[in-house]
């Protein structure tokens, strides 16, 4: 399960994991913008960016191969559009699409694999993202697995009663979705009742603020400077 794996990775301990989420978000944004604005395939530059991400992956003690394959989820779509680009006589664009989408995906994966989501959301909160949205995201993430398990339990139950349900009839599938909706709704009410019982008054406690250290600021500045310097040096 992809998100369970990322969740586990994000709770490891390493110098990268210990960095402040705000610093990591800023560094990642610097990289994303630099990558998104590349237009010519400059091999050295791509190699340098790739190496920078690689160093971070190693420093974060994340499994290299699984990170590299994990970031490859964008490749099927990029390849499909790349083939169209080549067919319409623009191989440069095809290469750039692949490079840009892969590097961006690796950057994003590195960010979430080295930062627990609650801390990442706390960082986004510090950066001024709407708190309401972040709270909804946190609930969503919390109950993602719970409801998926409920759905697969329902599927197993249906299978044990009716034989193969690989393909439920349309109406039955709709019924299953409806039941799942009703259960999710009930669960949400139960959660709310439990929250009220624990003193919830309509305001979520804010994300626990952690101090932004000098080392974090230096990391963010250094990362952005390195990205820009690489662009300056390698044309």
């Amino acid at each position, binding site marked *: 399960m992809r998100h369970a794996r990322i969740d586990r990775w994000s709770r490891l301990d390493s110098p990268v994991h210990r960095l402040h989420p705000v610093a990591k978000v800023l560094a990642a944004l610097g990289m994303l*913008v630099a990558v998104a604005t590349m237009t010519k395939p400059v091999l050295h530059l791509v190699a340098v960016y790739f190496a920078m991400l690689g160093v971070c992956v190693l420093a974060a003690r994340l499994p290299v191969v699984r990170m590299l394959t994990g970031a490859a989820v964008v490749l099927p779509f990029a390849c499909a559009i790349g083939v169209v680009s080549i067919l319409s006589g623009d191989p440069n664009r095809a290469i750039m699409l692949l490079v840009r989408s892969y590097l961006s995906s690796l950057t994003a994966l590195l960010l979430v694999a080295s930062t627990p989501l609650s801390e990442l959301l706390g960082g986004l909160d510090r950066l001024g993202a709407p708190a309401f949205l972040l709270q909804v*995201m946190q609930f969503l993430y919390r109950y993602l697995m719970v409801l998926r398990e409920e*759905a697969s339990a329902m599927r197993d139950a249906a299978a044990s009663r009716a034989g193969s349900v690989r393909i439920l009839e349309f109406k039955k599938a709709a019924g299953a979705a409806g039941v799942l909706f009703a259960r999710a709704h009930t669960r949400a009410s139960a959660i709310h009742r439990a929250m009220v019982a624990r003193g919830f008054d309509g305001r979520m406690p804010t994300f626990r603020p952690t101090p932004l250290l000098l080392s974090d600021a230096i990391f963010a500045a250094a990362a952005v400077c390195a990205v820009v310097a690489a662009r300056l040096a390698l044309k």
Partner: protein
Amino acid sequence: MHIPDGFLSARVWVPLDLAAAPAVAWLGRRAQRDFDHHRIPLMGVMGAFIFAAQMINFPVGNGTSGHLVGGALLSFTLGPAAASIVMTAILAIQALIFQDGGLLALGANVFNMAIAGVLAGYLPYLLLKGRKYGIFLGGVLSLLVSAILALVELALSGVPMPRAVLTVSVALFVVSAVVEGAITVAVVGALEKIQPGFLRRPAANGGSARIALALAASVLACAGVFVASQHPDGLERFAQKTGIWSNAKSVVHSPLADYQMAGGHWIGRSIAGLLGIGIVYLVCRVATRALSQRPGEGS
């Protein structure tokens, strides 16, 4: 339909991030004003429900199956503003955890699916007072509008779209839109049998701004389809035309446009990109301050 990073050019993703940030802040405030506070867990759990419901396969014949996308269903059950927030949260989680859709492209994806898609899905429901074909049309439109907006954005970014590719993708979009419509009707039917209270009957005095926005989205999408079908062999020309149009517009709106249009020099483009991020950040910050700082007062 989730656009990854690396596909959109800066003149597409920067303005869309700029537009999406205050829109989400405004919708968040609206969603909070509409409901009492038990909606926060409800909205999160409903987002998780959409993920889980996508495990349920709906057979559509020929051995293939579709699944619920859910924008329209959410807008019927939670109301359009809350549905937009839930869809935004879904898209953000997908971009972060599943690398499904890019982070810089999040504004574009939010605009396509969480804002335009949800509003386009809600509009027929509102206008047809929740009748069955309104529900069907809502499902169809929510998907079609999002897909066509994504297509237009890719074309504006210069992604080549020869006629054959365009025809196939539009055909696929239409089929999946009809499937989404049918699934939405079926699920709404099931919900009404289980517990009728789940659906929010469209209010008679539905906000006129919402209607206007939804109308604009639908018109935009229809115009896109129209232009594409008028010049089936010339989407490049269409992109060129609209590209020129958007350039002209961005000259008016943005001092960064010079850099982008100068085209050749990468420093200019990088600066434009970084400035873009800066502006997105500032707008985010200001809009959040202005719009969503008083959640406690209303409730």
